[in-house]
């Protein structure tokens, strides 16, 4: 494709009424939560400071796993969404099957399956191939005894699961763009891919931004499930601390507050981006 860059945002002057100090409960909430955290850690370093120090690396793991997964989810969702609107029955069928299966199985079960059960499945397949077709024993051997890194398994699980939900968001967003847009683009001689890339998707992005933002916040919270597959995230670090100190109330108060700060900030960033993108129409 040529390196032509279609402008993505519409710089139309807003006629927002002057920003008179509107009362915004978000700030109150953030001040409250951050303040409470600070008071706890500074005012009662034992145990709160100890807990905070102990779980800090878990916070980074949680953030990393959320962001890495989310980037992959955006890509998986685009592929799945385009598959869901494809005319080709094979592509459409495969995409629909994927979405239906994934949406019918709980996320935790999927994560556990990928981490614990999938390697066994691959081993069985590898052994099957090797014994059936000895010529392929070499490549089939690669499937045997795979040990997934917990982080990789978790990212993979999130991508597959959230990718299915994201596919539906993309599909709905693309389908919300009037049919005439695609027809106009095609009648100018643009291919399907070019029309999607330069005409449909730039418009669909604005439509899907709010639900995509919600998915990010939901993923941030769901990332705590990875503690079940041996990833040392915030939740798992909290559990470790609790099991050695038995300070349940203090540990989980702090962990919950840290999650709350993260989700409050990310939903704020999401609505900021939304506002930026919805300037003009």
């Amino acid at each position, binding site marked *: *494709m*040529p390196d032509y860059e*279609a402008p*993505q945002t*519409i710089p139309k002057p807003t006629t927002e009424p002057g920003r008179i100090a509107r009362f915004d409960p978000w700030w109150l909430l953030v001040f409250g939560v951050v303040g409470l955290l600070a008071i706890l850690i500074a005012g009662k370093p034992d145990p709160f400071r100890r807990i905070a120090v102990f779980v800090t690396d878990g916070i980074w793991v949680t953030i990393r796993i959320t962001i890495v997964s989310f980037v992959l989810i955006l890509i998986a969702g685009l592929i799945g969404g385009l598959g869901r609107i494809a005319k080709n029955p094979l592509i459409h069928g495969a995409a629909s099957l994927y979405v239906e299966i994934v949406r019918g199985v709980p996320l935790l079960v999927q994560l556990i399956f990928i981490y614990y059960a999938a390697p066994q499945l691959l081993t069985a397949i590898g052994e099957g191939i090797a014994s059936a077709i000895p010529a392929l024993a070499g490549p089939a051997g690669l499937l045997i005894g795979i040990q997934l890194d917990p982080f990789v398994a978790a990212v993979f699980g999130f991508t597959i699961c959230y990718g299915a939900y994201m596919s539906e968001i993309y599909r709905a967003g693309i389908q919300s763009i009037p049919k005439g847009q695609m027809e*106009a683009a095609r*009648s*100018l001689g643009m291919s399907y891919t070019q029309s999607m890339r330069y*005409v449909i998707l730039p418009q669909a992005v604005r439509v899907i931004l709010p639900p995509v933002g919600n998915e990010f916040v939901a993923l941030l919270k769901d990332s705590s499930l990875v503690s079940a597959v041996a990833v040392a995230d915030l939740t798992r670090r909290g559990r470790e601390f609790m099991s050695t100190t038995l300070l349940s109330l203090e540990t989980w108060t702090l962990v919950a507050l840290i999650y709350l700060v993260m989700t409050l900030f990310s939903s704020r960033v999401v609505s900021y981006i939304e506002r930026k993108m919805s300037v003009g129409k």
Partner: protein
Amino acid sequence: MENDIIIIEDAHKSFGRVKALTGVSLRVGRGEVVVIVGPSGSGKSTLLRSINHLETLDRGRIVVDGIPLTQAENINRVRAEVGMVFQQFNLFPHLTVVGNILLAQRIVRRRTAAEAEKIAHELLEKVGIPEKADSYPSQLSGGQQQRVAIARALAMQPKVMLFDEPTSALDPEMIKEVLDVMLDLARDGMTMVVVSHEMGFARAAARRIVFMDEGRIVEVGPPESVFTNPRHERTKLFLSRILR
């Protein structure tokens, strides 16, 4: 090369049980302006849309400028040679007026930015709204939007222009500005197939009027004879309603 730039032979098209076209044949010569009239649901849009393959025929043959519309690669080639203007304008709302006119020039015709922009500004001059180059479609009136849509199609330097009721979504005071642009185009020798009930335009620009009903062409002839002296009852009935 054939003298007829559009050849439609025995076109059939159904949507489920609805028969939109039932054996339509029509030839359009180079530089000719044909106006299609007919009651709602008679298949006018379907016929127009099958000329650039927005609808796929069930049966029949369409040849545009010597290129049969069968293989996929031909379809994109033909589309680049056939401009289409829609009732609802269908401008790209996320792009400026100039952006709308540039897009396909850049990625289909692969023109340089400078070249494409020069053409865009010339065309905006031609359709009478050079000052709107950097506006967004939502900031334009319907008549202005439709003129941009015409400019966008013309930027591809098509050999044929198709118009599907280009003025029927417009307020009365804006109809003339769009029809004037179309009349200019007709005088410049553009081949045009126009679905429209604007009798003034048809009389001034059309060499032939095609009257369609129930997926068929009922009557074809020069405007004077079809409008003043229709041969078929259905044409008479339809015209008496349109002309009031």
